[in-house]
C-alpha cells in the first residue's frame, strides 16, 4: 500500500510543484482575445449550486460566484471575499468585513445583507450547513461591508463550513436571488465571481459559455485550491460537453479543444503519445468508490453478511478493473479519505488484511443465509459504477451468494435505490457509486457513514453509536481530539459496515501543451490558466 501511495502521490506532488512554478503571481499581464475550450466532466443542467449537489454545478458555481472563505492546499481555510475577521474570546461572535471593490455582475456592490441571505439559504440545504441553525443565535449586518454571526453555543467548525470546498459550497449571491425558497431552483446567474455566465449561448447538453468578468478584483495571494487570487487570463471559456470519450480524445489530439477535464484512464497512452498534449492528474486527492448495502432488507440487514462481503472485497482488483494502471489508483482502507487529516489505519484489518473467503463463508453460514436472491444494481452508462458491480458479482459468486445483476441506466438506478421494498417488489440489496475525496474527508461530510436509520442516505444504516460519536466529533475542541473520535467512528464502521470503500482513484486530465498555470486541486478551477 505504501508503495502504491508513494508512486501516485509523488507524481501528484511533482505536478503540484510544477504548476506552482509555472503559475505567475497575481497581477500578471492578462491575456487578450483568448478562448479556452474545455470539455467538462458532465453536462451542466442546473444553475443552482445550493439546490443541487451535482459536481458540475459546483464547478459552474466557482466560475460565476465567489465565496467568503476558501480551502487552500494545506486544508486550511483562507479568506476569499472576506478581508478581515474577528472571533470573540467566548467563540460565540464572528465578525466579518468584506474586501473593497466586490461587485455583482450587474454592477451593484456586494453588501452584508447579500451574504447573510446567501448563508441562510445554504444552511437550509447543505449537510454541514444544516448543523449550524441549531446553535445559531443570529446573523446581522453591522454596516454594508461588515456583518456578524452570533452563536448560542460554540461551533468550532464554523469557518470550515463556510469555507467548504465541495458541494454544497456556500456561494454568495445577491440578496434578491438568495431570498428564493431553498427548495426552488434559481434561474439567475448573477455572481461576483471571476467569470460571467453567458445565458444566451447556453445549450444544455452541449455548450456553456463564460466570459471574463473585467470588474473582478482578485486577491493578491497566489492561487492555492479555491483560495488566493483568482486571476483570469483568458477572455472567454467555452465548456463543450462531448459525451463520447473517443471523440473527445480525438478532438483534443487534433487541437480542436484545449483541455479535457476527465478522461478514462485507458485512453492515457493514446494521448500521452501526442507531443502537443500533457496528460496528468490535477486532483491531488481523487475519488472513492463505494459499495452500498441496503440495511433494511435481508440478508444484508444482518451485520455478519456485510462483514463477510467486507472480508473478500479486494480493493486492488476493484481498482485495476476500474482504473487500470496503478498510477491512477491506490488502496485506501479507511472510512475517511486517505490523504486528509481524519484518515487512519485504525481497526482496518477486515478490509486491509488477507482476503479471507473461508472466514467469510463461515460468517454467511452463521448469518443463516440460504441462497435467497440478491439484487446488485449497476448503471451501464457509468463505467465507474459498472466496473465495481461486475467485479463484485464475480466475488459474490465465489462466496456462493445467489446474486443477480440488475442493469439499468443511472437515472433508473437512483430512482430504484430510494425503494424500501424487498427485492421481489422492486427493491435492491447493493448498489455502487463514488464520491470525491473532500466529500468523505470527515464525519461531518461523509453522508454514507451516517447511521440515522430511515433518515440516512440510501441504504439507511441504523447505528446509534456512530451518530453519538459524530456529535462528539462536532464538539471536539481541536484536531487531535477530532482525530481520536474519528478513529472510534472508524472502528465502529468496520464492525457495522455501512458501506465498503472500494478504493481510491484519480481521473486523469489532459490539456494542450500551450496551456500554462493549470491549478492542481480536487475541484477544477479555470482561473490562472493561460493559453500560449
Amino acid at each position: 500500500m505504501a508503495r502504491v501511495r508513494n508512486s501516485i502521490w509523488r507524481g501528484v506532488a511533482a505536478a503540484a510543484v510544477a504548476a506552482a512554478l509555472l503559475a505567475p503571481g497575481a497581477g500578471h499581464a492578462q491575456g487578450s482575445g483568448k478562448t479556452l475550450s474545455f470539455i467538462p466532466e458532465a453536462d451542466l443542467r442546473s444553475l443552482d449550486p445550493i439546490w443541487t449537489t451535482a459536481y458540475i454545478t459546483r464547478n459552474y458555481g466557482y466560475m460565476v460566484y465567489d465565496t467568503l472563505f476558501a480551502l487552500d492546499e494545506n486544508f486550511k481555510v483562507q479568506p476569499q471575499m472576506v478581508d478581515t475577521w474577528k472571533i470573540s474570546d467566548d467563540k460565540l461572535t464572528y465578525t466579518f468585513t468584506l474586501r473593497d471593490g466586490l461587485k455583482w455582475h450587474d454592477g451593484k456592490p456586494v453588501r452584508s445583507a447579500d451574504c447573510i441571505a446567501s448563508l441562510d439559504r445554504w444552511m437550509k440545504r447543505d449537510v454541514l450547513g444544516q448543523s449550524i441553525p441549531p446553535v445559531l443565535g443570529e446573523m446581522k449586518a453591522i454596516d454594508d461591508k461588515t456583518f456578524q454571526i452570533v452563536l448560542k453555543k460554540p461551533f468550532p467548525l464554523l469557518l470550515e463550513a463556510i469555507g467548504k470546498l465541495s458541494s454544497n459550497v456556500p456561494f454568495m449571491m445577491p440578496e434578491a436571488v438568495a431570498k428564493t425558497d431553498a427548495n426552488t431552483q434559481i434561474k439567475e446567474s448573477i455572481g461576483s465571481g471571476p467569470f460571467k455566465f453567458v445565458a444566451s449561448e447556453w445549450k444544455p447538453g452541449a455548450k456553456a459559455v463564460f466570459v471574463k468578468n473585467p470588474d473582478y478584483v482578485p486577491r493578491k495571494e497566489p492561487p492555492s485550491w479555491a483560495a488566493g487570487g483568482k486571476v483570469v487570463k483568458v477572455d472567454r471559456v467555452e465548456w463543450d460537453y462531448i459525451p463520447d470519450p473517443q471523440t473527445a480524445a480525438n478532438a483534443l489530439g487534433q487541437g480542436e479543444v484545449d483541455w479535457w477535464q476527465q478522461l478514462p484512464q485507458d485512453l492515457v497512452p493514446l494521448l500521452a503519445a501526442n507531443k502537443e498534449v500533457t496528460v496528468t492528474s490535477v486532483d491531488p486527492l481523487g475519488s472513492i468508490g463505494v459499495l452500498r448495502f441496503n440495511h433494511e432488507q435481508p440478508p444484508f440487514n444482518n451485520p455478519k453478511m456485510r462483514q463477510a462481503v467486507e472480508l473478500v472485497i479486494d480493493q486492488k482488483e476493484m481498482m485495476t478493473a476500474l482504473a487500470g494502471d496503478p498510477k491512477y489508483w491506490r488502496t485506501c482502507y479507511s472510512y475517511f479519505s486517505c490523504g486528509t487529516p481524519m484518515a487512519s489505519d485504525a481497526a482496518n484489518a477486515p478490509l486491509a488484511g488477507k482476503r479471507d473467503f473461508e472466514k467469510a463463508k463461515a460468517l454467511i453460514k452463521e448469518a443463516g443465509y440460504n441462497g435467497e436472491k440478491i439484487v446488485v444494481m449497476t448503471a451501464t452508462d457509468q463505467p465507474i459504477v459498472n466496473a465495481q458491480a461486475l467485479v463484485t458479482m464475480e466475488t459474490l459468486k465465489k462466496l456462493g451468494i445467489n446474486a443477480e445483476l440488475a442493469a439499468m441506466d443511472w437515472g433508473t438506478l437512483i430512482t430504484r435505490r430510494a425503494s424500501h421494498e424487498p427485492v421481489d417488489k422492486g427493491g435492491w440489496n447493493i448498489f455502487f457509486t463514488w464520491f470525491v475525496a473532500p466529500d468523505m474527508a470527515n464525519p461531518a461530510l461523509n453522508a454514507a457513514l451516517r447511521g440515522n436509520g430511515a433518515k440516512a442516505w440510501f441504504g439507511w444504516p441504523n447505528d446509534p453509536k456512530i451518530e453519538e460519536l459524530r456529535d462528539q466529533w462536532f464538539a471536539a475542541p481541536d484536531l487531535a481530539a477530532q482525530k481520536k473520535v474519528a478513529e472510534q467512528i472508524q472502528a465502529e464502521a468496520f464492525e457495522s459496515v455501512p458501506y465498503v470503500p472500494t478504493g481510491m482513484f484519480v481521473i486523469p486530465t489532459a490539456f494542450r501543451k500551450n496551456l500554462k498555470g493549470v491549478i492542481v486541486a480536487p475541484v477544477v478551477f479555470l482561473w490562472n490558466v493561460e493559453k500560449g
Partner: protein
Amino acid sequence: MLAYIVRRLVATIPVMGVVAIFVFSLLYLAPGDPAAVIAGDLATADDIARIHHQLGLDEPFLVRFGTWAWSVVHGDLGISIFTNLPVTKLIAQRLEPTAALTVSTLILSVLLAVPMGVIASWRVGTWVDRAVMGFAVLGFSVPPFVLAYVLILVFAVYFDWFPVQGYASIADGLVPFLRHLVLPSTALGLIYAALIARITRTSMLEVLSQDYIRTAHAKGLASREVLVSHALKNAAVPIATIVGIGVALLIGGVIVTETVFAIPGIGRLTVDAILRRDYPIIQGVVLLFSAAYVIVNLLVDLSYTLLDPRVRY
C-alpha cells in the same frame, strides 16, 4: 390540389394524437423518476418526495395529460425539468445542426445512390450490378457507429482532412460548415444510400421490363436515352416514396451519429433526455420527429404530381 393538402393535413391530426397519447402513457409508466435524478446523489428520500410534488408528478394521469395536451395545442411544449428552460427553446437552438445533417445526408445519398441504381439496372447481371448490390447489402450490414469510428480514424485523425467532431453553423462560413458535415453525412448516409440504390434498381428493372420500353428499344432509341428519359421518369415515384419512408431511418440514425460526432443536435437532446427522464423534452421531441416524418411524406406525395404527370390530386 389545395383541397388535397388541407385534407392530408387534417388527416395528420389523429396520427399526432395517437403519438401524443402513446408517448405520454409510455413515460407515465416508465420507472425512472426525474425527481430522483434532479435531487442528485446525496439527496434524501424527503428531498425527492418534495421535488416530485413540486413537479406535479403526483397528480393523477388524466390531469397531467390534460394539462400537457392543452398547452401543446397552444404551442407550449412545457419546461424542461432539468434546465428550467422552455422545451421549444431547447429544440429551436438545436434544430439547425440536425436539419443541416439530415438535408446534407439526403442530398448526398440521392446524388450517389440513384445513378448507382440506374447503372446497376442497366447492366443487370454484370459485375457492375453485383458491385452496386454488394455495396447495398454491405450498407445494411455495418453498424453505423463502427463506420463512424473508422471514418474518423482514417479521414480525421490519420489524414487530418476533416474535423473530428462538432458542428459549425452556416453563419460561421460555408467552408467550415461543409467540412464539419462531410464525415457525419457519410456515416449516416451509407445505409440510406444503400436503401435508395436498391429500390432504384428494383423499380428500374420493373419499368425496363414493361412493353413500352421494349417498344422504345425496337423503335431504335439509344439505350441511354431510354434509360433516363423513359425508365427513370417512370421509376421516380417509387424512388421518391422510399426517400420519404427512409426519413424515419435517417432520424433514427441521427441519434447515433450526433453522439459519435458530438453534434449538438436534436438526436443528442433526445438521448440525454431519455437517460435523465426529462419528460417534457422527450414528449416534445417525439412529437416533433413524428410531425417531421408526416410532413416529409406529405411533400413526397405532392412531388408525385411533378414526377408523374398522370398523378392528379
